[in-house]
């Protein structure tokens, strides 16, 4: 068993994985350790010069690997290496067999990342804040996976003419109209109020149709764990209560 220690990003895993592959180290021989644990790899192995052998794997593998690296579970690195190893040594078409256990697991994890990014784009709620006479749009969001880097470019494409900062417990992204900067994770932030949010809350209540209560359908798309960062979610229990009241009133 060897320990391979890497940083929590794709580039770092990729360098390490290529070296392991060159040495033909089997997947179950490796213990992947992420973030600064000193293992055999960093001390001895990384310094070694190996001739850069290029491995050609299915082009589907790279985007899959890039997504999986964001997954919030240590198992991701070993799963990725096992897939890579099997692609090289067992079947280059492995990724097409979606009923294979490893492939299936990887695809499920990949889907979870897509969903996390999607919800990131959907659920960030900016407040307009004045700092040094500049309007900055600031948001506090809690992604489940390491998706800050993946999610940030969307906000520049859309809001590139606004200064913004997105703060999360998995890292922060800042846009100053010119460059995108990432910074360390922060803990829960309380932001100053923003009047527009009051209008949003009024809109949310008014567009709700109490005659069609479908709580399960809502929770499926608006998972409860996101509620604490969404201002409108605070209204949900009361809206449900009133809708139910309406129902029982009308029945008698």
């Amino acid at each position: 068993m060897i320990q391979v220690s890497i940083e929590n990003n794709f580039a770092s895993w990729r360098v390490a994985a290529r070296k392991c592959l060159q040495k033909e180290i089997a997947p179950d021989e490796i213990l992947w350790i992420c973030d600064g644990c000193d293992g055999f790899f960093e001390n001895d192995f990384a310094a070694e010069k190996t001739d850069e052998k290029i491995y050609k794997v299915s082009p589907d593998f790279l985007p899959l690997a890039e997504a999986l690296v964001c997954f919030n579970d240590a198992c991701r690195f070993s799963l990725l290496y096992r897939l890579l190893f099997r692609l090289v040594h067992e079947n280059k078409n492995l990724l097409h067999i979606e009923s294979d256990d490893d492939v299936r697991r990887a695809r499920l994890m990949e889907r979870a990342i897509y969903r996390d990014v999607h919800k990131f784009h959907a659920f960030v709620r900016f407040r307009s804040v004045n700092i040094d006479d500049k309007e900055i749009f600031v948001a506090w969001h809690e992604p489940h996976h390491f998706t800050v880097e993946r999610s940030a470019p969307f906000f520049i494409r859309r809001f590139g003419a606004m200064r913004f900062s997105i703060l999360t417990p998995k890292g922060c992204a800042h846009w100053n109209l010119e460059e995108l900067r990432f910074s360390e994770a922060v803990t829960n932030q309380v932001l100053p109020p923003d009047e527009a949010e009051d209008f949003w809350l009024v809109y949310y209540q008014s567009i709700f149709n109490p005659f069609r209560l479908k709580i399960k359908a809502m929770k499926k798309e608006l998972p409860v764990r996101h509620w604490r960062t969404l201002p409108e979610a605070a209204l949900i229990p009361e809206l449900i209560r009133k809708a139910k009241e309406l129902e029982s009133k009308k029945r008698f």
Partner: protein
Amino acid sequence: MELVRKLEILADAAKYDASCASSGAHRKRRNGGIGNAEGMGICHSYTPDGRCISLLKLLLTNVCIWDCAYCVNRKSSSVQRARFKPEEVVKLTMDFYKRNYIEGLFLSSGIIQNADYTMEQLITVAKKLRESESFGGYIHLKAAPGASPELLLEAGKYADRLSANIEMPVQKDLDRLAPEKTLVEIESTMSDIKSGIDAAKNSTKRNGDAPLFARAGQSTQMVVGATESSDTIILHKAESLYRKFDLRRVYYSAFTPIENTNPLLSEPPTPLMREHRLYEADWLIRQYGFTASEITHGARGENLDLEKDPKLSWALRHRGYFPIDVNKASARQLLRVPGLGAKNVARILKIRHYHQIKLEDLAKLRVRLSNAKWFVITADYNPSVYQLDAEKLEEKLKPKVFQPSLFENLSNAALSGEL
């Protein structure tokens, strides 16, 4: 009236239009501008009715000179009235958009004075957003039936989507409930929109540059259950609209009687499940190569089965079509298997290059086997398929507990006025 009160009234009045889509538009943000569209619309929130909030959905005004019986905003209804100034809608849209609450605006209106005047008001808002605010987000405008082609052309320059609501599948229903409206007029509005879209597409092909015209196409809505028209009639109408006008979507809105509902509407209340089945059937028509007659022909009665989804009902009526061998069948055949969706069909086609597909593979792909297993042959032994022709299969596929919507009771009460 305060802006916040207007917002309350005019959002409330807009919520019966089921469309919340914001997909299909592609627009890069202008330099210095705010907003873009990237094809896939995003749902930024959900209300406890399970519906997505993607757009700021508003009526410019709920004042209306017409008197459609199914509509809260009709002339004779006693709701409180309000009217936005165009710049108020612009401000709300920009404020909401910049905070990432929405993808854009869906603006509709009661008929003020006449169709053209109404259309001009809607265009004013869209134009301000695009030109004064450099707004690049999504805009959906309602097309007032009978608005002049010139105005529709102008609306299409600013809007990503236009929609003229057909409301009812046959003229007889409109005569009864919306006497000012005719199918001929509404369809001619749809046809004007289609011409605009086609013209823009053709000139894109010729010149390469893309004049913008309702790039996300047009849609419409039918109110379901306010008249006797059956699902068969509704689905045939929808199919013909898809064919004639290349609609992106037909929305179905189960009629809910509310407070000051017109006494004309003494039909039994519409179960939400009926609306749901219509959406499923619509999906089969658009994505799975079914025709409206296949879905409705031979169904018991003129309406879709509320207990079973339309694909399963079709399969049970056409058992001779099955069993389907998942290792040999074409995509078209596989799409007809109950419980097999388009994504899994694509996966199956790939996997079978490499190995024979067994039941276990289907399970791993999360195919709904409780529906599918009766209709397929797999590489291993599938005992269920031998019951395909058994009379009691239909019984087996009945949901154990059929739960009619809680709100059927509610609508019943609302309708009979027993409070």
